[in-house]
């Protein structure tokens, strides 16, 4: 499905509006961790479901789905194993993104379909519709003002620049800003900001997006060999 182009700033504003609307409806101030399941159920009045897409429908690689006409947001039961809390919450936030940004398009496109749905597969992550929902999810779960505040309180006022892929000094007392140390940096921001339902990977991607981490190397931050470091936090 083709989606109209949306600027990042526009998507962020929409995510901030959702939080503001939820705060207004619930009469409270929301701080991280952002209660995305409660936003789905009590702000949007949508249903939540857990579905084993593989077992029930023989569909592989589906993380979540938004059933527009049923007002139902589903996550794959495989994300419920306890090790995937960040991924599960991100999937719900991603589906909220579809609901907010794309449900009208689905209605227009599939107005006669009985089971109009947006199915989200891992392999489709780069498609514009999925990218928009991902970006919305990041803005919803990691609101800019809270991320900046957490970064300032845990790391400092200046952005961190990664000039090296690996640490250059052994046994140093501070966290050397380099690609392989990304989990430590993400962990510090995560803990300070209370982003407890978000993965470190999502945090580091958001930090780069907000220009708080500047990667001057060719290595990708948030992937690969750093898993070892991540597991040891």
């Amino acid at each position, binding site marked *: 499905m083709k989606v109209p182009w949306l600027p990042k700033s526009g998507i962020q504003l929409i995510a901030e509006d959702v939080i503001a609307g939820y705060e207004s409806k619930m009469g409270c101030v929301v701080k991280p961790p952002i209660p995305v399941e409660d936003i789905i*159920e009590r702000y949007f009045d949508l249903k939540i479901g857990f579905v*084993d897409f593989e077992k029930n429908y023989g569909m592989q690689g589906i993380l979540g789905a938004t059933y527009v006409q049923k007002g139902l947001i589903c996550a794959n039961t495989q994300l419920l194993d306890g090790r995937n809390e960040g991924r599960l919450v991100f999937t719900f936030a991603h589906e909220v993104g579809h609901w907010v940004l794309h449900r009208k398009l689905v209605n227009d496109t599939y107005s006669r379909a009985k089971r109009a749905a947006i199915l989200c597969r891992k392999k489709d992550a780069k498609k514009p519709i999925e990218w928009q929902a991902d970006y919305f999810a990041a803005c919803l779960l990691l609101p800019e003002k809270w991320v900046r505040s957490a970064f300032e309180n845990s790391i400092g006022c200046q952005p961190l620049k990664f000039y090296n892929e690996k640490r250059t000094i052994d046994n140093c007392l501070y966290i050397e800003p380099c690609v392989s140390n990304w989990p430590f940096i993400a962990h510090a921001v995560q803990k300070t900001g209370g982003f407890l339902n978000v993965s470190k990977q999502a945090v580091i991607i958001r930090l780069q997006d907000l220009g708080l981490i500047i990667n001057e190397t060719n290595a990708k931050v948030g992937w690969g060999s750093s898993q070892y470091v991540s597991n040891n936090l």
Partner: protein
Amino acid sequence: MPKSKDSFGKLLRYLRNEASVGLRELARLIGKSPGYISDVELDNVPPPSEETIVNISNALNVDKKVLLNKAKKVDPELREYVADQPLAADFLRLAKDQEFSGDDWDRLTQLARLSKLGKSEGEEN
């Protein structure tokens, strides 16, 4: 507010949201999987067992008869009571044979309450 014709799943979801208990939290509180609670709420499966409904009611702090009645299930405590009181079972059988109407039940309930009230007053005097 759910309507009387609404399904068990819809009522459960309404009560859970009213109690501000998340789906996963409810599952954890009653020792069931979130997938199962989700299936119940979406009416993909029949209502749970009496015991599970009582556990759900306790977790949500709601009167168990609301969910038990909707599921057309009997409170396990009541089942045990009837089993222990043959006269109660006989009375229910009579009510069934006589096809008691809603009005009949209302009048009998009122009588039963008054009878108990009189008994306790008499005991006090």
